[in-house]
């Protein structure tokens, strides 16, 4: 297969320049792909997908009675990011996470940012992730958002924007690691030639971070991953991370509060847990504090957490900043807490609860992307240019009924990467989700999960909406 006739169609292409020649950093890969014997790339692609199925790297499709497991579609053409392009992204992400963490801490303490009229109290309190139960909590080291997956996009002119901050339980890092393993088997020579920065140390960095935030104790802390169980869509990832870190994967029913500690039931009786990397939502953590009907959590867990007998990662209440209205204020937070300008810009955002903004949004629905403030996974979204008059009427009514729940942004021309579609390459839109760890300091995993909208022309990259993924190569220089 060759790239002959590949057309960037006026979009920013991550691999080719507007004149049709490969970007310098992609030249070696293009040569390598074009030099493969006919059919070889397809054969390798299929072998890679089969390997993913055999190893069970799958997610569960909700609403399917058979409990069907699917692999996340995987594209064989990676996305390449030069070291030079990566450097400001990394700095910008660190800056953003630092400010967001200070914001969350402030929300549950003095609320200086509200008193100084930078963010309205109503915005904070109406955020779906706001948990009044968390007021006054002091997590170890003052860190709330230990693990973040921030979604980035690149527009037509090449500018990188932050699209959203995922501060609750961002998933996808296991796909990133497995994609890399598959690509290293597929293109070993290209890896050697390009100096691709490794990602395989993520599990040990994650474990280090988890140990660093343990409650003070003499011995090595005991860490566990808490999963809702085998039927959760991201179960593979929970299990993969526990396995890679060599720690226990526990369910709520394995845990109990005994002798004033969080303990797990083992074949030799109870054993303590000091740090819980929980992959269940705040609401399900502890029925005595949050939802009383939750069977997934542990009664009494929050009380232990408040008394620093156990650390929860991410901290409960972190979701207050995982809201698309709060998102709009992040550049103000960076200015307020750090006295700096944001290195990575936000996508311009209209907030429908503001009267002027709402009028503008309702008048321009066919140009804008409208999103529900609290939804994820590509649900509750209107892509204006691709919408029908009926859909626009429906969204207009929804916005009028609950303006706080909606924001709007211009429709960005997301950058594209060549993607194998049957026997040829076609451009497909992508985003990028880097993963950031915050323990003693802030660490950004080089690259991230590149999600690709496999449907022609689609801008929605979520796996629930026909998205796939690609490996992301950050080069040493």
């Amino acid at each position, binding site marked *: 297969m060759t790239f002959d006739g590949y057309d960037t169609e006026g979009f920013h292409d991550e691999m080719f320049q507007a004149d049709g020649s490969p970007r310098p950093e992609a030249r070696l890969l293009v040569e390598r792909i074009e030099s493969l014997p006919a059919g070889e790339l397809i054969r390798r692609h299929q072998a890679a997908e089969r390997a993913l199925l*055999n190893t069970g790297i799958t997610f569960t499709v909700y609403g399917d009675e058979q409990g069907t497991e699917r692999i996340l579609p995987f594209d064989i053409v990676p996305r390449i990011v030069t070291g030079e392009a990566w450097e400001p992204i990394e700095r910008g992400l660190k800056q953003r996470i630092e400010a967001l963490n200070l914001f969350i801490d402030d929300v549950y303490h003095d609320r200086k940012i509200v008193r100084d009229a930078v963010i309205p109290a109503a915005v904070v309190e109406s955020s779906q992730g706001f948990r009044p139960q968390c007021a006054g909590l002091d997590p170890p080291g003052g860190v709330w958002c230990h693990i973040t997956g921030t979604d980035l996009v690149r527009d037509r002119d090449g500018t990188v924007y932050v699209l959203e901050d995922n501060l609750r339980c961002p998933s996808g890092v296991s796909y990133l690691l497995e994609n890399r393993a598959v690509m290293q088997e597929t293109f070993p020579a290209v890896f050697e030639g390009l100096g691709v920065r490794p990602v395989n140390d993520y599990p040990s960095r994650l474990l280090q971070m988890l140990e660093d935030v343990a409650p003070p104790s003499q011995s090595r802390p005991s860490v566990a991953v808490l999963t809702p169980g085998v039927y959760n869509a991201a179960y593979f990832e929970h299990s993969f991370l526990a396995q890679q870190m060599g720690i226990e994967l526990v*369910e709520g029913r394995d845990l109990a509060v005994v002798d004033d500690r969080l303990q797990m*039931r083992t*074949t030799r009786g109870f054993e303590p847990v000091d740090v819980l990397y929980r992959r269940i939502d705040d609401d399900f953590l502890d029925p005595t504090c949050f939802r009383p009907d939750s069977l997934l959590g542990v009664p009494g867990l929050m009380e232990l957490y408040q008394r620093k007998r156990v650390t929860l990662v991410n901290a409960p209440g972190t979701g207050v900043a995982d809201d698309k209205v709060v998102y709009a204020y992040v550049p103000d937070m960076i200015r307020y807490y750090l006295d700096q300008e944001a290195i990575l810009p936000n996508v311009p955002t209209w907030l429908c609860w503001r009267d002027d903004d709402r009028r503008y949004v309702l008048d321009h629905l066919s140009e804008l992307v409208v999103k529900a403030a609290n939804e994820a996974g590509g649900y509750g979204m209107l892509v204006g240019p691709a919408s029908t008059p009926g859909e626009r009427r429906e969204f207009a009514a929804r916005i009028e009924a609950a303006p706080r729940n909606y924001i709007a942004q211009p429709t960005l021309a997301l950058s594209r990467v060549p993607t194998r579609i049957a026997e040829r390459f076609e451009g497909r839109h992508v985003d990028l989700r880097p993963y950031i760890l915050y323990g003693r300091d802030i660490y950004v995993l080089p690259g991230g999960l590149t999600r690709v909208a496999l449907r022609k022309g689609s801008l929605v990259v979520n796996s629930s909406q026909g998205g796939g993924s690609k490996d992301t190569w950050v080069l040493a220089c």
Partner: protein
Amino acid sequence: MLSRVAASIYWMSRYIERAENVARVVGVNNQLVLDLPGQDAEQWDPMVKVTGDEADFRARYGGATRANVIDFLTFDALNPNSIVSCVTTARENARSVREILSSEMWEEINRFYLFLRQPGARERALWDAHAFFREVRRSSHMIEGTKNETMEHGEAWHFSQMGRHIERADQTTRILDLKYFLLLPSAADVGKPIDDLQWGALLRSASGLEAYRRMHGRVAALTVASFLLLNREFPRSVQHCAGRAQASLHAVTGTPARRFANAAERELGRLVADLDYTDIGDVVSTGLHDFVDTLQEKLNHVGNEITRTFFAPSSGSAPSD
């Protein structure tokens, strides 16, 4: 380790072993029928009896033809002991503890599962039965071998060993019982050539024919029973399996040999000691069927005590029997 995890590993291993044994019995019977033309129903009927789901089979299938029995024992999702059901349950258990298994072992379990769900598998089991059931056995062996070579021989491995060997001991008694049903209507035929064929098939279904011949030469009913029950070196004999399960049980608890610190150790210790001091004459005087029945009861007992000692109050996928 977590009680839930230990239970899942134990049951995962039991179900893989159970699937392998169903394939053994079906595969060998399928071959045996070739040597005994015209006795289709007679040959397939006992297989349903020993699986213990006879009423269910009669209600849903009626007669015991080759196709019916193979389908019921291999692909029937409503039969909890069909190969497909066993492997699905094993994989569900494995999926819930895959962080404990080695990646290679998990991959083998997953392959086994995907192999059975391949389009056309049902048809293949009928027209290419020999290859199909050999592949089932091979998949189980791949899992076991991969486990032994890639997992640390720690607590998780020992729980798997316990599950494997207790299930295998139980299945070997069932294979023997299969012969009991075969013999019953024709006690006078003992020693005739057709009987040799059947005892030979029985040994083959336990992969024991070659080992048996090396040790004993001619196939004779009592020697076969003794071999499958009491031989210490043959890996599928009840005596050998009970000993292996006991070694793993004591490795988990650290209790010295010939002592006990819990009911599981006591029950299993008694069983092993009983077998140690049994000879085939005792089996004959008790009656093969009764002896095997008691043995199955004792194995059940051991299983229950393992559950009570290590897995309660939270256990993995509940056993179906």
